[in-house]
């Protein structure tokens, strides 16, 4: 914790110095011919080397989308793996052009670090995992349960808050190490295992029979994971933000990487505007007219990215949940392109 504060304070002061002089990221990026993207040093589904030893994941696909919008080439990206202590310093020093590394959007980070958050690529949050044969479907049925928790994390505090607020009894079974927690749950020492939903899903795959366990759909804390750009460079911020919006709009309009060429002939004015057939929305952004077409063609829409990396058919097997579009009961929403 102390470490974190020092880093934050340090990057805050340094960040302020650096950001003022760092305008024109888009020009810099165009000049050097690639996007330097800060990613994690490994989180399943978000950024991890695939079978071909190349970076893959939800965070990585966002970098690829951005590169496609600028260069029409999803491979015009260089990845810098950063751990959580380095990430903001690497931004402040200009080592990377943006961060796309499971960073939770919080007020202090947004206002004190000289950073801007682009938009929530993934709504994560703390969830519960129970054995299927227990028949539990909602956390409200967890009264009196033994709950496996990793100690010293916000997870522990969130769980205590949640059970207190809902007048439920529970017995915490705490461990220091994450693997110990998982083992204890698997050995039946507790009824429930709680941590971030994506973490639950990742750990479930290690069980002998993963399908014996269910992750309850109710989420009890807010962990919006968002890409980050430097504050004070609105052009670059717009490019990053509208890349994200284009992914969502494409899904909403039913444009996928498979049918995008077909969709060029669509009669829907919204699709025409998105794909640059009608009007020019790319030039004011500093990009080409067909910027969104390139994103969808090269990387796909939000749904494709989600399903490819963390969706139900991947080992993580996460339902869309709150990450569904607003039209489908979720909260992913993008302003219109017009």
């Amino acid at each position, binding site marked *: 914790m102390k470490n974190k504060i020092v880093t934050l304070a340090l990057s805050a002061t*340094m960040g302020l110095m650096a950001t003022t002089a760092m305008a024109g990221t888009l020009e810099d990026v165009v000049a050097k011919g690639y996007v330097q993207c800060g990613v994690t040093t*490994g989180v*399943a589904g978000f950024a991890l080397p695939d079978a071909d*030893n190349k970076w893959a994941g939800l965070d990585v696909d966002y970098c690829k989308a951005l590169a496609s919008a600028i260069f029409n080439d999803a491979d015009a990206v*260089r990845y810098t793996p950063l751990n959580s202590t*380095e990430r903001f310093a690497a931004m402040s020093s200009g*080592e990377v052009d943006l961060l796309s590394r499971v960073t939770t959007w919080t007020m202090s980070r947004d206002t004190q670090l000289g950073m801007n958050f682009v938009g929530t690529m993934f709504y994560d949050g703390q969830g519960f995992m129970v054995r299927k044969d227990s028949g539990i479907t909602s956390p409200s049925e967890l009264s009196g349960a033994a709950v496996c928790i990793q100690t010293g994390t916000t997870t522990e505090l969130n769980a205590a808050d949640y059970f207190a607020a809902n007048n439920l009894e529970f017995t915490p079974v705490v461990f220091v190490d994450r693997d110990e927690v998982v083992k204890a749950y698997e050995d039946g020492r507790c009824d429930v295992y709680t941590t971030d939903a994506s973490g639950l899903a*990742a750990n479930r795959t*290690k069980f002998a029979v993963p399908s014996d366990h269910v992750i309850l759909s109710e989420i009890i804390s807010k962990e919006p994971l968002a890409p980050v750009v430097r504050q004070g460079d609105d052009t670059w911020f717009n490019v990053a933000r509208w890349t994200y919006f284009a992914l969502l709009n494409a899904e909403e309009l039913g444009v996928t990487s498979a049918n995008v060429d077909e969709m060029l002939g669509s009669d829907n004015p919204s699709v025409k505007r998105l794909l640059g057939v009608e009007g020019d929305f790319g030039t004011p952004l500093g990009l080409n007219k067909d910027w969104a077409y390139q994103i969808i063609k090269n990387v796909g829409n939000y749904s494709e990215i989600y399903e490819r990396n963390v969706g139900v058919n991947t080992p993580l097997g996460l339902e869309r949940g709150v990450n569904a579009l607003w039209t489908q009961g979720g909260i992913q929403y993008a302003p219109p392109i017009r």
Partner: protein
Amino acid sequence: MAKNNLAFVRKDIIDESPAPNLSKGIVGWSKENLFSSPSNTILTIIGMALLLYILPPLYNFVFGHAVWPGEGVTVEACRAHGTGACWAYIDDRMSFFVYGFFPKDAYWATQEGFLASIMQYWRVNSVFAVGVLLLVPLMWPDLKYKTVNAILFFVVYPVFVFYMLKGGVFGLEEVQTESWGGLTVTLIIGLVGIVVSLPMGIVLALGRQSKMPIIKTACIMFIEVWRAVPLITVLFMASVMLPLFMPVGMTVDKLLRALVGVSFFSAAYMAEVVRGGLQALPKGQSEAAASLGMNYWKSMLFIILPQALKHVIPGIVNSFIALFKDTSLVSIVGIFDLLKTVQISNLNLDWASENQAITGYLFAAAVFWVFCFGMSRYSLMMEDRLNTSHKN
């Protein structure tokens, strides 16, 4: 009494009779070493019991119940209950452990077969091959042309490695150092650290004993500052703080920063090891050299250093081994050395099983052990060869 009154006189010495069966062979050895006294017997039995308790499960985990790579072996086999180490996982991810993110050769990536699997990474593999070809004769004591060999290894080879891996010339595709990884990076950091720290340490040690105050102070300051800071701090400083002090837009390669940090750090330790050797030499040696008319450098080069360094071979190799193992610390600043590639692969859900992480760490430990044990045996051999019987 007269001689011939004796009933029998042996004229010659009888041959030694063989030792009794109970005191030779395995029985005799164990009687002497394992069961020589009641307390030894008890200790032996306890020790045996412990070994019997530990070894069979360990053997079963590592070999007996392990899942070996082969046709049709998938993650399901590793997930099954009661299996041991998942070596199939190591086999599947091996290219990542050795080459990290290094891109495959565009042509050979599409080919099949054993040759293709080597040629996919021909740039890194040729670096390994040339390295072995140069290093083995260099370390082989009786071979000639050591000077040529040394120049090739210490001057030409690093340039070769740099351009081979980095590319951007001779039509080679450029590969950023961020894409270097795995064992390749571990060996690069280890070798650069070793090659830089020894001469630098010698110079610092000599400087520390110098009579010139500025040089002496500078060397003492360098040694004491670097020795007083933990390596993790050095690496964090290099990777987090340094970029902030640099002019905006200017960045120094991350791997280079780590290389400099590791090299300076171990040079400071090396300097103190070498100084120990220098102090062990009697003053008469340098006086004798001076009386022969040798200047400072000549006496150092031909009289003092050869003796001093020979004394501290164990200390030097100790530092080398420590340095090689410390290279794994670079993983905390986001450089993908062998340990980091193992750690990140342990998160790979395609091979998610209970024993995935344990198997990965076992593999990493085995690789480190092979290299460190090799260094240790080599140093023992050199000690024996250079022994001029000053010690008993």
